[in-house]
């Protein structure tokens, strides 16, 4: 195992100057480096957008607070939402897909390595452009700053008449750029997974992670164009005097909402399915059982992808659709719960009777299961039209989707970090710091978002920059804000752990978790060519077959 210590990627190899290392990152087309660059950049944006959330919560901690004015507050929640979705969630999923898909299917790189690098740089410059708006958007006229129209930029408020200056243009153009990056990365992952699999890896022998990446990237191809098209229309309205969303000329503001949510709702599933993907790899390994109901998992994921594209207008129950429209979208929304429930039962079925090891990745997965279920249940509540009429645009909705994206997605992503970090860097993350991260983050999460449901039920609307005392919201908001600080402390533990373990972590070896998928068959970190000889597989768990020649999986296929 001595060679493990020197098997470090070029980026961290001692002896190279900083300039050489940076140059290496700029010119690289290696899927592993690009994957880590995606994730690293996304984590930077996570910290920035997280600080914005803390600023928002500080403002809302006390009634009649005037720490942050209304204009700044609008920019804060717009930039927080936009950055979290497009600059954190999407690139993390692209990064995980980039890093893991080629390793899991036993190939040496993505199908189109240069296109892959192009995608990363489009994402990075799109992200920088969005934040540059703070400086650039005022322009010569002095109007505007960062975007302040909310992450769904409802027309006509995002039109020229109501959004002066260039703030909305920055929102449009930066997202168009990142969308180009996301689209090429999606094409690349699909092409890789479908055409580069190693010998013997049939579709039904692919790790579930790869299956779910295929589904989520197909969804990107199908729905991201709706956002891009709508943004192009908005740009035409703003710069060429078009009438798409101009109600004075017969245009329809509701059309923008339809187009946005045709993208916007499936987007939630695009974000959460990679979370499912991590959980589906981790739970079996730490239960010491193969995944329960593999084909059903594949079918359920595809069904989620399919159904979620027909539910978008449940974001629009209050704009006055017909009762048939409302009924259709309420029912289709509830229908998504069926395949999602199937998945939860399959994960539970995997846990049941397993020899569970409470390692860090597993802790995050167990928290994910509980929290994602809760988030799903409030989702079903909101799918009921009269309930939604009462609570739409309230803090109940804010609490619901943060429960999905933090309690569900982020916990699953963190599980993935603890699980695959040893593979990417050759060293384990520190367990003690990891436990601090887990408990601080979990407790902070529940303090914030369990509590946040109640001001919503009591009538507190979202996106208000302050509120009067005496409505019964004060204590709840104070607890919510305090929980934010606890979560930030948890994230600090993670960041320290990630950086410290690069040098000081315990050496991991090739296969620290005694896992079964192909990425654990090569060294940690993997060499640039991934596999010296391309592997051949005969079952879903190739490493199990290798470690247990007396009882291989393929005997039972």
């Amino acid at each position: 195992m001595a060679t493990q210590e020197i098997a470090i990627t070029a980026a961290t190899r001692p002896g190279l100057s900083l300039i050489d290392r940076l140059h290496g990152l700029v010119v690289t087309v290696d899927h592993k480096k690009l994957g880590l660059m995606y994730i690293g950049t996304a984590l930077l944006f996570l910290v920035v957008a997280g600080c914005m959330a803390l600023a928002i919560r500080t403002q809302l901690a006390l009634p009649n607070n005037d720490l942050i004015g209304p204009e700044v507050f609008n920019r804060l929640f717009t930039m927080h939402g936009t950055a979290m979705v497009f600059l954190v969630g999407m690139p993390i999923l692209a990064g995980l897909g980039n890093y893991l898909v080629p390793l899991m299917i036993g190939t040496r790189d993505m199908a189109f390595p240069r296109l892959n690098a192009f995608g990363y740089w489009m994402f990075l410059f799109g992200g920088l452009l969005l934040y540059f708006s703070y400086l650039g958007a005022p322009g010569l006229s002095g109007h505007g700053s960062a975007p302040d129209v909310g992450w769904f930029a409802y027309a006509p408020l995002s039109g020229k008449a109501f959004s002066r200056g260039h703030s909305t243009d920055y929102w449009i153009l930066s997202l168009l750029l990142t969308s180009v990056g996301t689209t090429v990365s999606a094409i690349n992952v699909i092409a890789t997974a479908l055409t580069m699999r190693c010998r013997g890896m049939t579709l039904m022998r692919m790790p579930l992670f790869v299956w779910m990446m295929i589904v989520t990237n197909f969804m990107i191809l199908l729905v991201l164009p709706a956002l891009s098209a709508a943004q192009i229309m908005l740009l035409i309205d703003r710069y060429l005097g078009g009438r798409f969303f101009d109600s004075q000329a017969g245009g329809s503001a509701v059309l923008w909402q339809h187009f946005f949510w045709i993208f916007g709702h499936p987007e939630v599933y695009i974000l959460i399915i990679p979370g499912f993907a991590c959980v589906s790899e981790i739970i079996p390994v730490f239960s010491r059982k193969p995944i329960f109901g593999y084909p059903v998992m594949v079918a359920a994921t595809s069904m989620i992808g399919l159904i979620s594209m027909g539910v978008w207008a449940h974001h629009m129950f209050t704009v006055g659709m017909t009762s048939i429209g409302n009924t259709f979208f309420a029912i289709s929304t509830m229908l998504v719960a069926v395949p999602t429930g199937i998945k939860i039962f399959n994960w539970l079925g995997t846990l049941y009777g397993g020899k569970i090891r409470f390692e860090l990745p597993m802790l995050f997965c167990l928290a994910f299961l509980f929290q994602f279920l809760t988030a799903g249940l409030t989702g079903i509540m909101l799918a009921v039209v009269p309930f939604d009429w009462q609570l739409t645009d309230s803090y109940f909705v804010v609490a619901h989707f943060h429960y999905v994206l933090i309690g569900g997605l982020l916990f699953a992503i963190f599980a993935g970090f603890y699980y695959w970090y040893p593979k990417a860097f050759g060293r384990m993350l520190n367990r003690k710091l990891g436990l601090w991260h887990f408990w601080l983050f979990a407790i902070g999460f529940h303090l914030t978002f369990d509590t946040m449901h109640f001001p919503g039920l009591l009538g507190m609307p979202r996106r208000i920059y302050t509120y009067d005392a005496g409505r019964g919201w004060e204590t709840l908001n104070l607890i919510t804000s305090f929980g934010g600080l606890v979560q930030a402390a948890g994230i600090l533990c993670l960041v320290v752990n990630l950086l410290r373990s690069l040098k000081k972590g315990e050496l991991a070896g090739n296969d620290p978790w005694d896992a079964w998928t192909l990425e654990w068959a090569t060294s940690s970190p993997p060499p640039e060519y991934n596999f010296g000889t391309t592997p051949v597989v005969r079952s879903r768990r190739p490493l199990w077959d290798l470690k247990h020649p007396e009882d291989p999986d393929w005997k039972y296929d």
Partner: protein
Amino acid sequence: MTNEFAIAVDQSTLEWKLPSSRKVAVLCLILTETCIFSIFVAAYLFYVGKSLSGPTPREVLELPILSTICLLSSSVTILLAERAFNRDRVGTFKLWWLATMVLAAFFLVSTAREWYRLIYQHGLTISTNLFGTTFYSLVGLHATHVVIGLILLTLVFIFSLRGYVTIMHRERLEMLSWYWHFVDAVWVVVFTVVYVIGR
């Protein structure tokens, strides 16, 4: 050391064939482009007859029959070019390829003339009314795709004149022709929506 786990199984028993990466990628691209066009088509159909002022489609639009025939037949010529290429008849290939480019260019010129007529004779611009906005966006989006296709076709033609295009590039040419067929198919939809249903 790095690969002590490489898994060896009896390789001879396995038949192993996978689709081409290029084809999958181009199909994905076509899929996502289809979705962009669908949104623009949806917007067009949603706003048919909702303009608050004139001119209306019936007053100003004329059926672009000739340019449609040209664009659709360019799908045939590119097919013939490809066939000649696969049979190693380089001269015929260049001829059909050039024909495709000429037809595409003719289509673009007719669109330009149509727009000129609409703008200068009928005063219909992108900001005149909803019809103008949706018409120029949808037809313009398609024309943009034709322009991109024409640039790619021209590049291939220049390369082939200099003798750079060899049998190695067979699949690349095929991918370009897939894109071209897609652009043509989109025109069928645009034509139906704008000039038949919308008029």
